[in-house]
């Protein structure tokens, strides 16, 4: 559970971990019934739409103004986004 929380970048409090552990166990029990089916011969569907080759020509279009880029930024430093150190 902590490994998954770490992968998902969620700093969960201890009581939250406990509650989620119980809840997820129940949910996994309920959804785990998909394992009953023998689907070895069935192809997976990742998309309900049967369409291929949707693309765009390589023609640049206008980017955002810097005002728009940083309109919602929690920490702007010049024209850069500032974040706490990565280690």
């Amino acid at each position, binding site marked *: 559970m902590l490994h*998954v929380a770490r992968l998902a970048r969620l700093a969960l409090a201890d009581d939250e971990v406990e509650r989620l552990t119980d809840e997820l166990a129940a949910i996994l029990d309920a959804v785990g019934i998909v394992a009953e*089916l023998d689907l070895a011969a069935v192809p997976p569907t990742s998309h309900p739409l049967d369409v291929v080759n949707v693309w765009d020509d390589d023609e640049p279009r206008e980017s955002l103004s810097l005002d728009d880029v940083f309109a919602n930024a929690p920490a702007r430093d010049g024209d850069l986004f500032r974040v706490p150190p990565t280690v």
Partner: protein
Amino acid sequence: MTPLVDTLRLTAEEALGLVERREVSPGELHAAYLEAIGERDGELHAYLRTAEISDGASIPIALKDVISTKGVETTAGSRILESYVPVFDATVAARCKAAGLTLLGKTNTDEFAMGSSTENSAWGPSRNPWDPERVPGGSGGGTSAAVSAGLAPWGLGSDTGGSIKQPSALCGNVGLRPTYGSVSRYGVVAFASSLDQIGPVAKTVRDVALLYSIIAGRDASDSTTVELPEPVALPETDRLDGLRIAVPTQLESLDAIEPGVRAAFELTLGLARELGAEVGECDLPTSYRYGMPCYYLIAPAEASSNLARYDGVRYGPRADAPTYDEMVERTRDDGFGPEPKRRIMLGTYALSAGYYDAFYGQAQKVRTLLIREHREALERFDVIATPTSPTVAFPVGDKAADPLAMYACDLLTIPSCLAGLPGLSIPCGLSDGLPVGLQLLGPQFGENLLFRTGHALEQAIGFDTVPVRWREGSDPLGLTPADDEGSDPTGLTPEDTP
């Protein structure tokens, strides 16, 4: 000041007529709705915020708060997007603007559209206009409550596993979840990309069809959209001659369906036969046993990835922390409520090394089965009919503590969503004084067929979309067809009541 228009009963088509005939200006209409909101939304909390000024040439519209609106805060019902003001319009918002529609406000939603009651909104739940002690459904409870209470002529919702259809059923209005790929998702805060679709909510099938014609069609910014194979046709006919309607045999044994819901559904099937339709049985064995498990693997998996961008770097609130990693973990812990956290955890788990094949991979294969069995049924029949929701609106707080009970609300709406098929919910009667929804499912891009079917049934059912408690004396425009209908607890007009 007495408003020029009583919005409670007004359909979008009627409102458009008023504006076209210049009986009311767009600004006056907008003001009338704001007045109604001021009057009734304190109780309902359908809106998170309203736009005070009308800037369009036509009638107003309410947009679910997952739809990006340039310059207007868009939070998706989440603290992690508190104060986030998009710098661009979602394609659907832009198309509404281009059609002259003015933004009336942003409506409440379960956080990131995850839920079936709007109780998961970080900004507090919305209430059902038919009974404010009950939920309006979700996640689009805000839009449905607004339409039902006359706080908007129409609105847009988003539907991943039932978020348009289910609240429409619980609030007694018409909602369309379009065919996957027919409406652009660009600019709509993503929940589960292979399932999300944007769709209209209104008081009538014709209104829904009209709004659908405004938003549908290929968008170069969304690679998963296509051109509609045929133009949208506003339904006219009130007959269903030759239409083949299928009812899944599996409904029989689903205990979750309340007797009152079943009764209204059966009555409606009878009406369909009277209108000339044939009603037969189809078989959807995988859908009702494995549809929900399949959905609750695929949707959270995609959600866990879609919600990874909320990291406090480029927008949204940021938690104070000494390192990037801690900042991201605390920002997300503070910003996400319990339901998104649950689904992020579930989805991350389903995709993680060693579990992918058993969970996500297996669910993708179940999805193939669901597509196949719907296709087979729709080769023999034109539409599939089921109740939209197994229950009517339930009391606020009833299921909030039990995720699995809440998930079960979408038992009947989920399978067709996984199959990418369109679904229309129309009100088909009352049970214990609360609306019951009829779900009509069609083939891919079969919206016109659903509109024709839904419209004919709607005429026959004669459901009064105004909540019973507000019917007395609410008819300044004389739009109520019959005087004695207003107090009919079944919601059916006398001549249609068997």
